[in-house]
């Protein structure tokens, strides 16, 4: 009877004092002597939980989605989305300029955004993000847009164009089964995006209708910075030295409660955790980063163990931010990130949003920095 307060030692320890006094009352009622103790029990039973085994990087201490995404069924692979620039069908245009023609079809499609989670997406060309359109400053761009989806859609380009080509309700909005041709000159150079501008806007964007739209600078138009422009221009020897990737930061509200369940770059949660992005450490890295995350006001990019230069919106050839290791982007904000691992050890280097919430819900990955890449 002297250890009465042990009878209920499963009560929370921070309530130990209350428990002990309560039991001494019982003891008093029985006329028995109780030694009321207000000591706090030692934590027990759970301690091992903090020492649970953590495996290699792929497991990330258990904080990881479980299983594999079927990329074949999705029809797109995040590892390939990184670099598959769509330069369109090229033909000559007036004044020695180039015409680039693209065909984009909006279609409803179920895609696997994390292992086992099927999202009823609306897509451009059956993939999320849509094709990464890459043109050169001053090109004539022609987009044949076909709507094979179940709802009205548009393509609204971030760029300079006429009101008729704006891709909003009333200008270039396309009913299901119909089509429209958007045409404009590619200005200004930079890292841009396109997305559906039909209403309700949130729904049309978060369902998957967006993609990156990159306008490379034309060195001839920037004689003072011709080398810098050439390094950006796809197809030049200067550009070939760079390792370029597109990363569209997106998220998915799978239960339609206007909060995201899954965060990622290029759609699939933990895609680059499972399959790190291989980097040749001798060559510099350039990332075209676009934020289309819906429902959360900002997203961010943080690089581990390194610093980078940042070109907000990519519309300048000199950095807008120098030597930073993290940047934030509002929705539709985008920019170019440049860095190098030349002086680093080889190994896995992490990158992720620096909102822990997004990290833990899928937006993280690794650069696998190697000495030589085949």
């Amino acid at each position, binding site marked *: 009877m002297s250890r009465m*307060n*042990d*009878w*209920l*030692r*499963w*009560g*929370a*320890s*921070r*309530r130990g004092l*209350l*428990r*002990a*006094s*309560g*039991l001494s*009352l*019982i003891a008093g*009622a*029985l006329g028995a002597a109780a030694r009321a103790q207000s000591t706090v029990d030692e*934590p*027990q*039973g*759970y*301690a*091992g*939980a*903090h020492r*649970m085994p953590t495996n290699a990087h792929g*497991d990330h201490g*258990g*904080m*990881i*989605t*479980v*299983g594999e995404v079927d990329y074949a069924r999705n029809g797109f692979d995040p590892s390939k989305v990184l670099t598959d620039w769509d330069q369109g069908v090229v033909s000559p245009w007036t004044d020695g300029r180039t015409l680039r023609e693209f065909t984009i079809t909006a279609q409803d499609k179920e895609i696997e955004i*994390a*292992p*086992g*989670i*099927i*999202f009823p997406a609306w897509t451009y060309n059956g993939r999320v993000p849509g094709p990464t359109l890459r043109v050169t400053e001053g090109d004539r761009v022609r987009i044949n847009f076909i709507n094979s989806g179940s709802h009205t859609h548009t393509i609204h380009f971030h760029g300079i164009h006429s009101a008729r080509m704006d891709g909003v309700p009333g200008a270039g909005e396309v009913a299901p089964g119909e089509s429209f041709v958007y045409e404009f000159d590619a200005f200004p150079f930079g890292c841009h995006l396109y997305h559906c501008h039909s209403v309700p806007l949130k729904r049309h964007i978060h369902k998957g209708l967006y993609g990156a739209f990159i306008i490379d600078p034309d060195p001839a138009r920037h004689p003072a910075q011709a080398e810098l422009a050439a390094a950006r221009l796809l197809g030049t020897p200067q550009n070939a030295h760079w390792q370029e990737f597109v990363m569209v930061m997106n998220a*998915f509200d*799978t*239960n339609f*409660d206007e909060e995201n*369940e*899954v965060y990622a770059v290029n759609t699939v*949660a*933990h895609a680059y955790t499972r399959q790190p992005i291989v980097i040749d450490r001798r060559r510099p890295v350039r990332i075209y980063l676009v934020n289309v995350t819906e429902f959360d006001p900002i997203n961010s990019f943080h690089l581990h163990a390194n610093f980078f230069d940042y070109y907000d919106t990519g519309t300048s050839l000199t950095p807008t931010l120098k030597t930073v290791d993290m940047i934030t982007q509002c929705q539709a904000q985008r920019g170019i990130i440049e860095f190098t691992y030349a002086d680093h050890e080889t190994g896995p280097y992490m990158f992720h949003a620096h909102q822990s*919430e997004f990290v*833990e*819900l*899928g937006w993280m990955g690794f650069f696998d920095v190697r000495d030589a890449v085949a």
Partner: protein
Amino acid sequence: MTRAIVQIGGPFAALLLLVAAFFAYEPLRKPFGGTPPPVEELTVERTVLDESGIALKVRAGGTDPVSIAQVQVDGAFWRFTQDPPGALPRLSGAWVLIPYPWVEGETHKIVFVTRTGLTFEHEIEVAWPTPKVDAEALGRLTLAGLFLGVLPVALGMLFYPALKSGGAVTFQFAMALTVGLLAFLLVDTLGSALEIAGRAAPGLKSALLVWIIAALSCLLLWGLTRWRGQEFTPLGLAASIAFAIGVHNLGEGLAVGSAFASGAAALGGFLLLGFTLHNVTEGVGIIAPLLERRPQLSILAGLVCLAGLPAVLGLWLGTFAYTNHWAALALALGAGAILQVIIEVGLLLRRQIGKQSQSRAYPVVFGGLILGVAIMYLTGLLVQI
């Protein structure tokens, strides 16, 4: 014989035909444009926290099998295993094991994300190591159960001499008090049963079963006690009251046990003390029918055990094997038993009063009724889980 087969088999054959016709045409399919998305349900039935992490027993409901695609703990996707693996057919269960470093005394939120992107949330209000089944734990729980059920009933019986010395009016007062007490327990038990049923897997329709089982158990006990068509003896009535209170105490044991197991007990010691005070009145109720005779001590002891020991059983089950569905059904059984006893005691009281002037009896009866309810309510304030 053949005629009987046709008469019975005919309607069944027609029913089968109807089902076949329904699936052949599926009248709802056309106007609603194909098959609508499945309605999924997922309910957590048990939570076990130990050194290997969090284990949750889940049960599927809804129209289609539920596939758990991912599990989030506190807003983070977490590695997990499911046993048995695969999609969960309607009403089937599985254990989900998550090696998560939970924090003692804090709250954790688990979200199951299904294949279709639906989410089901489960909150662990106060994380606490789940007790393991061993001799020590059983011993402690037994002791707690004695405090909860046996001791207060025995204490209540100590009022026997006082009540006995009072005469007919005291007897009526005690019986009325018993009815008041039982009425409180009836509402309390039914309320708990329905509340718990609401937390069970929706597909099991536990709430409906609560009403059915309560009604059936009342009717069954009514029939059983009149099996031979004879009047209730006072001892029989006392035993019926003790049994009904026993089932109620089983429910209290379940509640306290599951609260301890999940760490949700608001005030460990006060909770138990509260139940002890709360249940003293039950002892008075059980001996009330026996005031006109002198029961043997062994009989009183038997009644105490009948009413009190189920609390021990309840604590064991509540701590180690609690599920909302079965707890709700057990409480429903208790509610039915209590209702039956209320009727019995009420009838006895009416016979008693019939022999004398009603103007004298009513104040006594109403006083007893109100006091019975009031005592239970006031001591019930000590009990908050």
